[in-house]
């Protein structure tokens, strides 16, 4: 393999690789704005300047193919001077309104300005100002902060699949916008906020909710569909604030879809049942304590029991439910449920060419692996036990199959439990650890990000109280 030398380290590379890729792979940090490994190289920010021996001028590492025997310096005086000038130029029009910018704390421009820029500005002219046009419900634009790296435009072109964003005018008046100012249509718009190196594009949903540095990041997996995209759950004090994609080249690369990004909403929602709830004699729902609620559930789960298991539960939970049903509920029939029309794993198809799958629960393939069949709405039963994470469809029409009590264990919404006798609040994907299987058969780990909301308890705890 050919070798080049970066900062005195002899590094191997595949022919055709750019210097910045070789450096990235070996942990050498070259600052960059416009380069993103997923996107075409445009070399227009000039921040990745490096000095190459025997080349008279500074080169941009993102567009310079590594050559055999090439000697690259990423931190020479000449490079530092170039970076400082690039920084100054980039900041000419930048408002530096970090105090009100949601990007602050995770902003590439802020970090590089601190590391490579000057503490003051020589610029005394008028700074350009834009009136912001709407970009749809997901993304909030603030054009004043833009540095024209065009990552967003390339994302829409190359990843999103169609050209939705353009750069209007040129030079100082360049404005990045959607075509004709229309709202963004892509289902992956949230990623624009992640790849934008400044606070020009930020999430409407997360706007002013929390400063980035307060958020604890827990490695987890999205439960939005059977793709199983890797995410970081961002939370503080038991409240989930957002999902950020986590790089996994085999599954989701750098992206997640908007549906998955905002799928955490129910976790801290007002409408979630978080206390053990029992229907009283006058048909009203009433909060009670765990012991009596479980006793009530136990007394009512009689006869031929239908056990419905959400395919949004983890393998561990499903196994526990299977063991419990075998042990405690004689004559029980077990099924999984999740997305309408998805009885078998093979019903799960790709929904688009990027990530999304048609199974809107994360563990359909795992549930099938554990021998469960899909619930087809047939048969008559005396009572039912419904185990649900937060994502499987709500089962509100079980009455036609079940004569007696319907008991819910897991995450339920107050509005959807009219036909239920007992609801035992369970854990959402952010409150537990476990394993789920995606459509490729890959097992991935969920990690607990927050403490259970309210009095919610795990399936294992419920079973411990049951006996």
């Amino acid at each position, binding site marked *: 393999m050919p070798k080049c030398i970066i900062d005195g380290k002899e590094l191997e590379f595949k022919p055709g690789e750019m210097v910045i890729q070789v450096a990235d792979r070996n942990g050498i940090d070259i600052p960059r704005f416009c380069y993103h490994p997923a996107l075409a190289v445009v070399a227009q920010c000039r921040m990745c300047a490096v000095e190459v021996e025997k080349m008279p001028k500074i080169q941009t590492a993102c567009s310079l193919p590594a050559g055999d025997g090439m000697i690259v310096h990423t931190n020479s005086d000449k490079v530092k001077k170039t970076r400082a000038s690039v920084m100054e130029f980039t900041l000419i029009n930048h408002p530096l309104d*970090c*105090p*009100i910018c949601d990007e*602050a704390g995770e902003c590439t421009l802020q970090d590089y300005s601190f590391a490579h820029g000057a503490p003051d500005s020589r610029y005394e002219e008028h700074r350009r100002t834009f009136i912001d046009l709407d970009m749809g419900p997901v993304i909030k634009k603030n054009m004043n902060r833009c540095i024209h790296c065009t990552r967003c435009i390339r994302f829409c072109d190359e990843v999103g699949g169609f050209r939705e964003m353009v750069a209007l005018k040129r030079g100082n008046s360049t404005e990045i916008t959607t075509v004709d100012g229309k709202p963004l249509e892509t289902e992956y718009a949230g990623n624009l906020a992640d790849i934008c190196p400044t606070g020009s594009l930020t999430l409407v949903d997360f*706007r*002013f*909710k929390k*400063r980035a*540095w*307060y958020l604890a990041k827990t490695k987890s997996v999205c439960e939005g569909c059977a793709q199983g995209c890797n995410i970081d759950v961002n939370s503080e004090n038991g409240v989930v604030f957002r999902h950020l994609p986590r790089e996994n080249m085999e599954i989701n690369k750098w992206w997640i879809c908007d549906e998955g990004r905002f799928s955490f909403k129910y976790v801290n929602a007002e409408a979630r049942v978080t206390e053990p709830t029992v229907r009283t004699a006058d048909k009203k729902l009433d909060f009670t304590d765990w012991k009596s609620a479980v006793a009530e559930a136990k007394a009512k789960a009689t006869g031929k029991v239908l056990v419905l298991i959400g395919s949004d539960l983890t393998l561990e939970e499903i196994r526990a439910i299977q063991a419990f049903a075998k042990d405690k509920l004689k004559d029980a029939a077990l099924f999984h449920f999740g997305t309408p029309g998805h009885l078998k794993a093979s019903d799960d198809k790709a929904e688009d060419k990027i990530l999304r799958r048609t199974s809107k629960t994360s563990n359909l393939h795992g549930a099938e692996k554990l021998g469960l069949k899909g619930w087809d709405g047939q048969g008559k039963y005396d009572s039912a036990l419904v185990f649900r994470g937060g994502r499987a469809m709500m089962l509100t029409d079980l009455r036609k199959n079940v004569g007696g009590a319907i008991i819910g264990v897991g995450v339920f919404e107050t509005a959807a439990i009219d036909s239920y006798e007992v609801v035992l609040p369970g854990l959402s994907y952010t409150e537990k650890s476990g394993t789920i299987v995606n459509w490729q058969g890959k097992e991935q780990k969920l990690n607990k990000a927050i403490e259970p909301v309210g009095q919610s308890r795990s399936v294992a705890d419920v079973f411990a109280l049951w006996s």
Partner: protein
Amino acid sequence: MLVNNKKGFLNKFYLFEILTGLKITMRNMLFAKNVTIQYPEERRTYSDRYRGLHYIKSVNGVENCTACMLCPTVCPAECIHIVAGERPDKEKYPVKFEIDILRCCYCGFCEEACPKDAIKLSNIYEMAVSYRDKGVYDKEALLVQRGTK
């Protein structure tokens, strides 16, 4: 180690020391100026740098604060609680701004961290409250201008 350096018999009564002490007492009692003052009628003047009760500076009736959260970030006592919001005349402003002055240690870091010249520590040092919840100052109370800093 205990050293017995009292020499003679008389010295063992500490007579000389007692008299010296009495002399100091008498001098202070009869001739020295009082160090106490008749508070609250009389007041001391404090230096302008004195760090007392907070206020949020406002200009033309609009609070300077832009809810950047730098003061709660730097606050070692974690006693500042802010909720940010948006309104037509100001992109970002504090919807809720509370300081629990019972937890505050008056370090002044918040004033130092503020990029907007908004949070200030005034000269006011009378902060006794009769109930704990009165020690939590809300935005309305903080917007009272308590000084000229």
